[in-house]
């Protein structure tokens, strides 16, 4: 069953179509990275899913509840905006207690849940301090804690770590990673390394439309090029050049390139041609330091897809 199902979702602001017939499905229990360049429609999509914005068209269901049933949706989701705002005159303990009251938790349940979440967020020591004096990282961790008070089925995070320094980023990403198996996480971001580190499934949005949606490993495999990289010991450049020249004439090699002591060989069939290439290397007597299939990073795939999509939409 899908934790989030979006069908033809649209949002127009005047003449601008921020979300343009978006179709998306997020599996239950997934940590879903919603990737896209700035202005792609990530935040608008999340605001539509939370009910803070109203769709111009289409339908969506979150944790089995239709967006029209805002009360049901509110009870089943947790939401963390990019820069969460709090009642700064409250302490974190009071804030979580207030949120617990809104969800109708009993006094004992509120107290226990608040302490549990403050421990998780590393804020137990400062639970009675006013939020006004909190750093950005502390606020973000408190933001995540308040989004979890009701043990949500779906957690919607809008750029949860964009505004944080590397240390704060690591802490929050570890917290998000720790939610695996507890709920479905839908996390928007434009920081690819965060997705690579935390998410198992990826959706890329551009110009308000979904460009691709797949498991991260499947996506990387799908866009892997049949390229081998060979690196030889220093002083072996001449032998490497001779090998590359010899390979250039082979029918199973599409393209070769050489840069210093590193050669790149583009082949037709990565699996079938690997033993042939290895045999050629052995026969050449080259002192090889490294031999590997080049795998693209998520960044390579992202840029490729977004660029392709950009070209496609250009008039």
């Amino acid at each position, binding site marked *: 069953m899908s934790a989030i199902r979006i069908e033809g979702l649209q949002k127009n602001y005047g003449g601008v179509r921020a979300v343009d017939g978006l179709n998306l499905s997020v599996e239950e229990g997934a940590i879903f990275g919603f990737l896209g360049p700035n202005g792609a429609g990530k935040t608008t999509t999340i605001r539509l899913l939370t009910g*803070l914005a109203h769709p111009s068209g289409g339908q969506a269901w979150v944790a089995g509840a239709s967006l029209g049933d805002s009360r049901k949706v509110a009870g089943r989701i947790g939401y963390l905006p990019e820069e969460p705002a709090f*009642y700064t005159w409250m302490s974190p303990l009071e804030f979580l207690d207030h949120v617990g009251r*809104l969800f109708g938790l009993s006094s004992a349940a509120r107290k226990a849940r608040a302490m549990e979440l403050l421990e998780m967020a590393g804020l137990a020591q400062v639970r009675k301090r006013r939020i006004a004096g909190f750093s950005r990282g502390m606020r973000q961790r408190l933001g995540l804690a308040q989004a979890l008070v009701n043990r949500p089925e779906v957690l919607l995070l809008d750029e949860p770590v964009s505004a944080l320094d590397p240390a704060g980023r690591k802490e929050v990403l570890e917290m998000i990673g720790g939610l695996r198996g507890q709920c479905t996480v839908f996390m928007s971001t434009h920081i690819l390394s965060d997705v690579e580190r935390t998410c198992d499934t990826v959706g890329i949005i551009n110009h308000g439309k979904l460009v691709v949606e797949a498991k991260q490993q499947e996506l990387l495999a799908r866009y892997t090029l049949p390229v081998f990289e060979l690196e030889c010991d220093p002083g072996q450049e001449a032998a490497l050049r001779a090998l590359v020249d010899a390979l250039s004439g082979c029918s199973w090699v599409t393209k070769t390139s050489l840069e210093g002591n590193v050669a790149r060989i583009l082949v037709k069939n990565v699996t079938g041609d690997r033993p042939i290439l290895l045999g050629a290397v052995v026969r050449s007597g080259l002192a090889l330091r490294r031999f590997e299939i080049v795998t693209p990073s998520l960044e390579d795939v992202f840029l490729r897809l977004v660029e392709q999509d950009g070209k496609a939409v250009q008039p």
Partner: protein
Amino acid sequence: MNLLTSLRKELIEQWRTYRLLVLCLVLLVFGLSSPLLAKYTPELLKLIPGAEQFAGLVPKPTLLDAVAQYVKNIGQFGVLLALLMSMGSMVAEKERGTAALMLVKPLSRGVFLLAKFLALACSFLAALALAALAGYYYTLVLFGPMDVGAWLALNGLMWLEMLVFMALTLLFSTLLRSQAAAAGLGIGAILVLSLISSLPTFGDAMPDKLVGWGVSLFTQPAPAWPALWFSLGLILAALLAAWLAFRKQEL
């Protein structure tokens, strides 16, 4: 249930941010000083060089002068404070983003809005009660006993007038994107209602007539029922309009 939770939060916020304290102190000071000012105005005139000859022209102050002074001070500053305390209540939460964080939880926009109005109403009721108590005590000491029922009714009617401007400013705070604009429209509403108040027929229904009714209770009661119904209607209409507008807003 969530109305109580929201109301609780609003009241604690008013206490912690010292708004309730300031409101109580200001109204208390005017409650205390009004009978004093009424009583000692002739004495004060004698102390002003050149104004001694006018002191004799001022009639001996009475209990009604004390009531009039109280109505003038509390009425003016009460309405001004109602405007100041309501102008940012909605717009500030929308600007900061706290409204968005709260309204994705099981909290309806109507309850969110109503809690703000009720908290303001409660705060003004508490502050006015203090002012009324102080005013009553000093009037008793300086002028003798007065009709407690009339005094309570007068303060109740003044509270109702303040509620009208609170509800209107809350509406403007919901509709607009800046506190200054909400305050500006609030002042505009005061001016418009004051202008209409001087017109025949329509003027009888304006909220400021409530205070006149309250004062008349000490002499010849002159009920201003149209003003009462119109004020209640205006409060309800302003809250309803604010709710309808807020429901459609994107946060």
